[in-house]
Every structure is written in C-alpha cells, then in structure tokens.
C-alpha cells in the first residue's frame, strides 16, 4: 500500500512525523481527505481535529488553525499549535471553555471581544473532543 511522508510542525517543534496512508483535515471551506498521490495543494486549515491513518493506527491531533501543503507524496501541516491527545491538559481546556462561554455571554454587544471569545471557545471544545475520543 502506498504511503506518504507526513509532518505536523508547530513553532514549538515537530508534533508528528512519519509515513501515513491517509490524512484528513478540516479546511476553512470544509473537510478534506488526502490520499497518497494527491495533486499538489495548499489550503488554510480551520480549528479542528486532524486524523492521520497509519497501518491500522489512527492518530488524532487537535489543531488550532494553520496551513496544509501537499506535494508529491508529502504532506506538510503547519499549525500555530497542535497537540496529541496525550499532551492535552483537560482541566486547562475545560477552564478555558468555561471562561470563553462566560465571556461570550458578557461580550454580546462588543464585536471584537465576541470574535476572540468565540475562537477561544472553538479551540477549547476542539481540544476536549480530541482528548476524549
């Protein structure tokens, strides 16, 4: 079975590196699955989970925005932050979720704050989902 070299890189270091059979990501315009032999592609990614299939293993990674570049049998995912389920601090994510929810309640009038709180909430929920799967 064909594989492709996959990297998940953040400013704080490489999170994942290895051969994979399939990578599925959430781009800003929807879910996208990449198989070996895909045409070169660049797409911005939204906050969401990435799934990397490797043999019979499935790796989940929580991603907070970034980019994906696909070239001949190579997938590069550049993220502001990316965490494997084992690296996620559940209590912290939960606290962040509650904080963001409170702020959303308060900031319904002001647009700027609202947007930031919304993003924070998305990140927290995403982390929790990945950690609990």
């Amino acid at each position, binding site marked *: 079975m064909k594989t492709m070299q996959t990297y998940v890189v953040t400013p*704080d*270091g490489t999170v994942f590196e290895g051969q994979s059979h399939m990578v599925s990501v959430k781009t800003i315009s929807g879910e996208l699955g990449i198989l070996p032999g895909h045409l*070169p*592609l660049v797409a911005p990614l939204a906050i969401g989970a990435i799934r990397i299939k490797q043999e019979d293993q499935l790796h989940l990674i929580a991603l907070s925005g970034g980019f994906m570049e696909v070239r001949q049998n190579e997938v590069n995912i550049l993220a502001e932050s990316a965490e494997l389920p084992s690296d996620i601090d559940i209590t912290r994510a939960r606290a962040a979720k509650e904080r963001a929810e409170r702020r959303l309640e308060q900031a319904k009038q002001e647009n700027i704050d609202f947007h930031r709180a919304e993003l924070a909430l998305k990140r927290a929920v995403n982390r929790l989902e990945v950690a609990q799967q």
Partner: protein
Amino acid sequence: MASLKEIKTRIGSTKKTKQITKAMEMVSAAKLNRAQGRAEAFQPYTQKIREVVTSIAQGTEDVSHPMLQEREEIKRTGYIVITSDRGLCGAYNSGLLRETHRLIQERHNSEDEYGIVVLGKVGRDFFKKRGMPVMQEIVGLNDHPEYSDIKNIAETTVQMFADEVFDEVYLHYNHFISAISQQVTEAKILPLTGLAEEAKEADQKTEGRLDYLYEPDPATILEQLLPHYAETLIYGSLLDAKASEFGARMSAMRSATDNADNRIEELTLSYNRARQAAITQEINEIVGGAAAQS
C-alpha cells in the same frame, strides 16, 4: 596597609560573590542549552512555511499582495527591539540599544517618523527615559517563551503594517553566533520583499515548479499566510535573541568569576604579606626588649 581583619573580610565577601556568579553562570549555561534546543526545534517550521510561501509566489503569475510590495512613500517606520528583562549580561543590551538609537537618530528627523515596539524591561526603560515613542511593549517574558506568549504583540504589529500605521518594519536583536559571541542584527521583516526575489531566483533554477491547487484560491491563502509568516519571523528572532541573552549572561558571569578568582589571589597575597610583617615586627619588638634588658 589595610589591617589583617579588613583583608580577611574582603576575601570572605569576594568568595561569596564568586559563589553567586559561578551559580549564575551554570544556570545560564543550562538555560542556553534549552534555548538553543528550542531555536533548533523552531527551524523546520520557518523552513517549511518559507517553502510554501515562495512556492505560492512562484506558482502564481501575478503575485500581488500589499505585504510583498515596497511602499512608495515611507511615512513611518516601525522598529521591533528585543532586549532582556534583567541586566548582568555584559554588553547584551547596551550594544543593541546604542546601535538602535544611533540608527534612529540618523534616519529620522522627528518622532512622527518612527515607532518602537519593545520587548524586555531594559529596552523599555531606555526608550521611555529618552521620550521616544514606544507604541507597544511586553515585559516579564518567560525564559523560554512559547509562541502564544508573543502572538498578540506580533499580530498587532503586523496589523499596524496592514493598517498603514507603519510602512516598513525592522527587527533589531542580538543574533546568536556562539555561546560567547552575539551580533547586533537588523532585519527588515515587512514588507516581505525578499520572498518575491527568492521566488524569482528559484524560478530561474531548473527546479521543477509545482502547480498547486489552491483551496479556496491563492489570494485568500496569501492573505492568511503572509501575516502569519511575518509573525513567525518575529517569534524566531525572539528565540534567537533569548539564546544570545543566555550566552551573553554566561560569558559575563564567567569573566566575573575569573575576576573574583584573581582578586582573591591578590588579597590572599597581601594578607600573607601583612601577616608576615606583623610577625616580623613582633619578633623585632621582643628582641629589642631583650637587648635593652641585658
């Protein structure tokens, strides 16, 4: 000559100072190690993001984005200056600040022509004292900063460029060469003119150009990717500067320890001399007394 007791106290206090400087040297060495590791871990990220940006610039025929183009009129220049929070690191801050100050004085006639974004307490105090326009500041950064720590300041600075508050942005920091040498460096981060040129150069090489699919389209991607790239440049320099800081502190503390060693040696010598002189004098007195009696 100082009394025996005085010299002894001075030896004691010098020894204590030496212990402290030695401990600080070791702490800095450990921190330097980690900082270097982080700077290295960051490399693949910049490398990759750079590759993507250049290949997009290469792949699309007309690359036009405000961040890639030199502005015709430079009304205001932004300077991001990365300093440390604490002293005791030799000429790390003073060298950098002197150079920045000199360049600013040379290039600009009035305060409206530039703005400063400063990281670190030493730099902030320096510019505030001189009444220079500090537009943003961040102090009390962790020794090993994470991307999220400076994300805000980097984002707002890039936004200021996009909003035409700044027409170009320079980065001033100490570039890490080795544990004992750092170099004051100026880098232009915005506009990203270097990238377009690099793309052209890569184009001229025989390297096969990749025709990318863009999801949704190149303009949107550049829109997101370029500010992000500029931010990572700032973060990368911060990591570089942190490694330099620990290197500078380590060598400053090492020379302080060496100086303390020399000082202790000198003091011990004069202590022994004073002691010997005192004994000789005492013997002389006894002999003199005995001679007078006989």
